[in-house]
């Protein structure tokens, strides 16, 4: 007899606390007190904004600030891909500051017509490439062209620097001697620089951006033993941003 009242009280308590539980709430909306705080300062044109991105670029030969020989890339195959997250702080209507964190993969296919001329390339080499895996980032200043836009990225120009650690450094080449084909692979290349850094410029409009990167750091540690050649320093590409920008 003593158990029954105890359970009854519990039951009544549950029922009284969940007076809506027997109904299905079809619509329930709460109204913000202040609409300026609706997104708590986060958004494409608010003080804070973060969004993921994907970048695809092509390496190209050209200018080098050092007296080295840029090996021509194989256009269309010498590319880089990057996935990352971008966080931007809006300093004022015109100026922002951003930081990227990213994982990158870069493939440098060597244009063998040029490379045969170099001492360490045999005419038997039919295909050669460097593959670099990077973890890194970038920081930049953002200049906004449309400061009076709404909550969207709009058009902007980013100028900044990038840097990264090359945690994967591979070289592979395919040799063909007579009819025999062989593949030669090297991992964790010791003469390859572990760090890379340089400058980046990017023009963006809403979900798209085009960018140009110049790698200031060298690819190889000791150029005298590697024939003073250098992988392409310039990269051009585009970025795509996911989410509401």
């Amino acid at each position: 007899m003593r158990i029954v009242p105890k359970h009854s009280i519990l039951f009544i308590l549950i029922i009284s606390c969940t007076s809506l539980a027997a109904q299905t709430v079809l619509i329930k909306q709460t109204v913000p007190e202040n609409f300026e705080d609706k997104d708590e300062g986060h958004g494409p044109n608010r003080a804070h904004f973060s969004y993921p991105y994907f970048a695809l670029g092509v390496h190209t030969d050209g200018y080098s600030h050092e007296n080295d020989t840029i090996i021509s890339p194989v256009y269309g195959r010498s590319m880089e891909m990057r996935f990352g997250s971008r966080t931007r702080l809006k300093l004022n209507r015109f100026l922002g500051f951003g930081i990227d964190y990213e994982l990158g993969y870069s493939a440098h296919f060597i244009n063998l017509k040029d490379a045969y001329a170099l001492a360490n390339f045999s005419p038997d080499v039919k295909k050669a490439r460097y593959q670099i895996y990077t973890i890194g980032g970038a920081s930049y200043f953002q200049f906004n062209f449309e400061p009076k836009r709404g909550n969207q990225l709009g058009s902007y120009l980013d100028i900044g620097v990038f840097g990264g650690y090359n945690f994967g450094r591979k070289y592979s080449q395919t040799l063909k001697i007579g009819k025999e084909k062989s593949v030669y692979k090297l991992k964790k290349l010791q003469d390859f620089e572990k760090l890379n850094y340089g400058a980046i410029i990017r023009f963006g409009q809403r979900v798209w951006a085009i960018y140009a990167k110049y790698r200031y750091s060298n690819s190889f540690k000791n150029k005298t033993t590697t024939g003073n050649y250098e992988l392409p320093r310039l990269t051009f590409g585009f970025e795509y941003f996911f989410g509401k920008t």
Partner: protein
Amino acid sequence: MRIVLVLFSFLLFNAYFSQEKYWVYLTDKDGVEFNPHNYFDQKAINRRIKNNVPLNHFTDRPLRTDYQDKISHIAEFICGHTRWFNAIACKLTPQQLIEIQNLAFVKEVLAMSTRTVFAEGNDYKELHKGEQGLLEGQIASMQGKEFTKKGLTGKGIRICIIDAGFPDVNTSSIYQHIRDNNRIIKTWDFKKNKPDIYKYSSHGSTVLSCIAGKTDGVFIGLAIDSEFLLARTERILYEGDAEEEDWLMAIEWADKNGADIVNSSLGYTSARHFVEDMDGKTCIISKAGNLAARKGILVINAAGNEGAGNWKYIGAPADADSVLSVGGINPWTGLHTSFSSYGPTADHRLKPNLSAFGHVMGYSPGTGVHETQGTSFSSPLVAGFAACVWQSDTTLTNMELFKKLEESANLHPYFDYAHGYGVPQATYFTDPLNGTEESETFTLDESESFIQITIKDEHFTIEDKIVFDYFPYTFNKLNRIPWLHFQDTYSTLDSNIKKSGAGYFYYHIENDAGYLDEYLVLSVYEKNILRIRKSENIGKTYRFHYKGTSKKITLE
């Protein structure tokens, strides 16, 4: 050399993208001659007389030509001008901007340019069985046949539609009755500055069909005998950026040409503005909407389709207090449809004011009469309804009509920020005594600690369960463009159209500042629908609505 080239490219880049559009506001209209009888259509003059609006008002006078000439000599490109705001729209480089700012007769220069969000959803390209039910339902939800029985078809009411193009309006049989009686009074393309608007986007054609279209004798919209002014102000495919100045010029044009009602199924949101700008006082077209209302025009605007998006709330000019904003109802649930933008305004005024079906049958070139969705089409349904009401009582001023439309809605005096006052009902106008003696559907019992709301036995019904996110056809899942995927999209093969508000229990909580903190809609599964603890809600006002009965209580 390379550095110089890079710098030069950067400067060029910067110069190109720094060319913006501006409103150049002028100081005065001194010495300008203006004869309203030469400028206005007779209907516009009559409207002014009826609404006690001065015929020769400062806002209607033209701009000073000498000021216009001087601006046009400096500016890169003149896009247009507005009499109402005494301003010129133009494209300026930074240098030209400085030059213009220094002119003595320039009061202010404000940057603009924006992107339009069409209040349109996607449409089904194939016709399904059940579409006829939807077609009849969009009229029946407003008791539209009551108007037809009384011969109220919007006759004598001039409606201006501001939209993106009107292909087929000059050829399709859907609009034959309008053409036969020469009831397309004027047309103007504000993009091309010419009268041909019968091409480009079909959005306007669908909107017109929802106001006045007729297919095989069945009404698509209610105002089949109204007169029309058709203005094209937007491009859909050519540019993402649209111009608010064209909307502004179009509504001035509508005023000049005697429009009684303006329907605009456009909205301006995130491309230019923040949600906190939606206070009816910030965006120029919201101010223009209010000014048009002051000149006696009933301005009706779609609430927008941002309800399920990041923006969520209404856009401009739906935020203007004198603009009648119309949200969307899902015909198969009778409730707010997920994409319809929510209110309130940023300063907590009620929006949307009314609702109508957000999934409708409308006409588009190529697809004929087909199902489409968006609050773009809720707004014209109400515009057609308003034209019929105005025809029934031409002595009403625009704001009296505005108020009466709200009063006629099925939830009134209850409201919330998803439905407004609900869907307008024709019997309020055609049979005002009908329903006044209806018995209460629920009781509100107050004890010392609680308020208990109980549904009366004779009104207690259990509605069918609503299944959200239900797609009956595989093709819908596969072919639907992801960003057009609305959570509660249904196919017309679904069951019957539901009467808005039927069987659901609505309640809201209003704070002492006078706006709602929260609002809910419940399905009813038991008679004791709600119990509120008084001690936790002191100072708050509760309003409840169930099957035609609304009650209010303030807890003290």
